[in-house]
């Protein structure tokens, strides 16, 4: 079995679209949540989201090409290019033929779908744009990455709602570890801040009216976000041989299904995924210093996740630093696991624990150390990044210091 490392990180997020800006915003608790400006708000009750506001597609794509890419594919391709550049990776013919491209997204081109159907049903349009299907298909992002970078190995999309990004990276990790692919380009992307999608989330009544306060007693729900994070994974041997930068080592991957409720977290299922990841990583609970939590900011998730952490870590939970980046990133659904993995890898790389922003008041039912509001310098040997999806699908990665 190969040892697998992260050598490149590319991000497009509401708190920054370079690795440096993303990291500084994260540790300074600078929030990307703000008034919705990218779609008309007349029909929305929700006033806030975490939008990527500094992204201009024309900076990245020729006008003709741009028409083929939905916003979620644009984010994905731009993050993938940045990851490859960050990894200082030359894509030779040999690498191109074998590299895997595995991307997580919970939906697909929702902007395309929303626009197209609005024209059809709302404006009684006669014909949708001929590129509607290639733009909106769920695998558009991973296909466009493979086309953009010329990657020709195993390439597919993973969809597991809010765990998509984590499941995708986990899959890529397994492939590099077992030798199925020497290099993988992997991560998650999502851009579904459309009127239709936001209305549908409103109907579920889980959106916060003000902001996202994970694990705080005053938490009032989640805030929708968007973005992408992509990684270059490769064998440690290959990375060292070519003198590549190494951010962190991927040590273990755990998955589980709750087989219970369609929306509510099941602590047993979440804890099983955490334990599976620790077992796979051969890491004892007491040797984990930091958990980047799913922490959506809903009453149920944060309480259930706390129970799950206590179940999986036992007494070691009392010494664990746990933080949720969703307080500044919002919830970017299928991208969330990947964006939060970027936060986790950079925490290991910099040996700084990012805080849980917007933390106001301790909740007796959330009784762990959530690193409230201020980043912490602390030695981190091993870290965990968790995602728990609607539908009860759980995915957890364990990383070690490079």
């Amino acid at each position, binding site marked *: 079995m190969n040892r697998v490392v992260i050598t490149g990180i590319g991000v497009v997020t509401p708190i920054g679209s370079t690795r440096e800006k993303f990291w500084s915003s994260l540790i300074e608790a600078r929030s990307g949540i703000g008034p919705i400006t990218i779609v008309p708000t007349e029909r929305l009750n929700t006033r806030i989201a975490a939008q990527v506001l500094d992204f201009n597609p024309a900076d990245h794509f020729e006008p003709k090409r741009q028409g083929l890419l939905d916003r979620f594919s644009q984010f994905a391709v731009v993050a993938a290019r940045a990851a490859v550049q960050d990894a200082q990776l030359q894509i030779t013919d040999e690498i191109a033929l074998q590299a895997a491209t595995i991307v997580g997204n919970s939906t697909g081109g929702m902007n395309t779908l929303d626009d197209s159907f609005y024209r059809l049903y709302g404006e009684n349009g006669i014909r949708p744009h001929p590129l509607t299907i290639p733009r909106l298909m769920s695998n558009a992002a991973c296909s466009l990455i493979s086309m953009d970078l010329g990657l020709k190995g195993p390439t597919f999309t993973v969809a597991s709602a809010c765990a998509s990004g984590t499941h995708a990276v986990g899959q890529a990790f397994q492939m590099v570890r077992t030798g199925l692919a020497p290099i993988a380009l992997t991560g998650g992307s999502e851009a579904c801040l459309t009127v239709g999608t936001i209305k549908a989330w409103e*109907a*579920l*009544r889980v959106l916060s009216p003000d902001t996202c306060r994970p694990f705080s007693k005053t938490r009032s*729900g989640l805030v929708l976000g968007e973005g992408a994070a992509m990684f270059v994974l490769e064998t440690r041997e290959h990375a060292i041989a070519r003198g590549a930068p190494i951010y962190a080592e991927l040590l273990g991957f755990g998955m589980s299904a709750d087989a219970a409720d369609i*929306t509510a977290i099941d602590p047993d299922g979440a804890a099983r995924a955490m334990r599976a990841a620790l077992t796979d990583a051969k890491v004892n609970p007491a040797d984990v210093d930091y958990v980047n939590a799913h922490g959506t900011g809903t*009453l*149920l998730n944060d309480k259930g996740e706390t129970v799950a952490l206590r179940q999986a870590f036992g007494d070691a939970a009392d010494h664990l630093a746990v933080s949720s980046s969703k307080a500044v990133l919002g919830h970017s659904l299928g991208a969330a696991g990947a964006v939060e993995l970027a936060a986790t890898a950079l925490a290991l790389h910099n040996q700084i624990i990012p805080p849980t922003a917007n933390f106001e008041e301790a909740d007796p039912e959330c009784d762990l150390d959530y690193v409230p509001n201020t980043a912490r310098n602390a030695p981190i040997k091993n870290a965990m990044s968790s995602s728990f999806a609607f539908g009860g699908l759980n995915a957890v990665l364990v990383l070690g210091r490079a």
Partner: protein
Amino acid sequence: MAIIDDVRSIIAQSLKIPVEKLTPETRLEELGAESLDVIEIVFALEEKFDIAIPLRADEATRLTKTNDGGGAAKPGQSGDQELPFSTVGDVAEIVEKLVAAKAAAR
């Protein structure tokens, strides 16, 4: 038809139980209503009466349980007035207030 009858029939339909089983005193919790059930009931009431009931899923979870913490819905957008949401009668009362407010606004 009185509002309470519509409320009873919507709750009965949503939870797939005979409407005769529902009295104003019946608690949603004892009917086995979970968070998503409550959200579907609220949706059906909003559609039926053309009103908006501002209730978060978090609150729905808490409120269907009898007086355990919170125990009140905020039927006004800014929480001007708090009302319980645990019995069929509570739900009907919230709907009545919102329907009356809508009529007064006309």
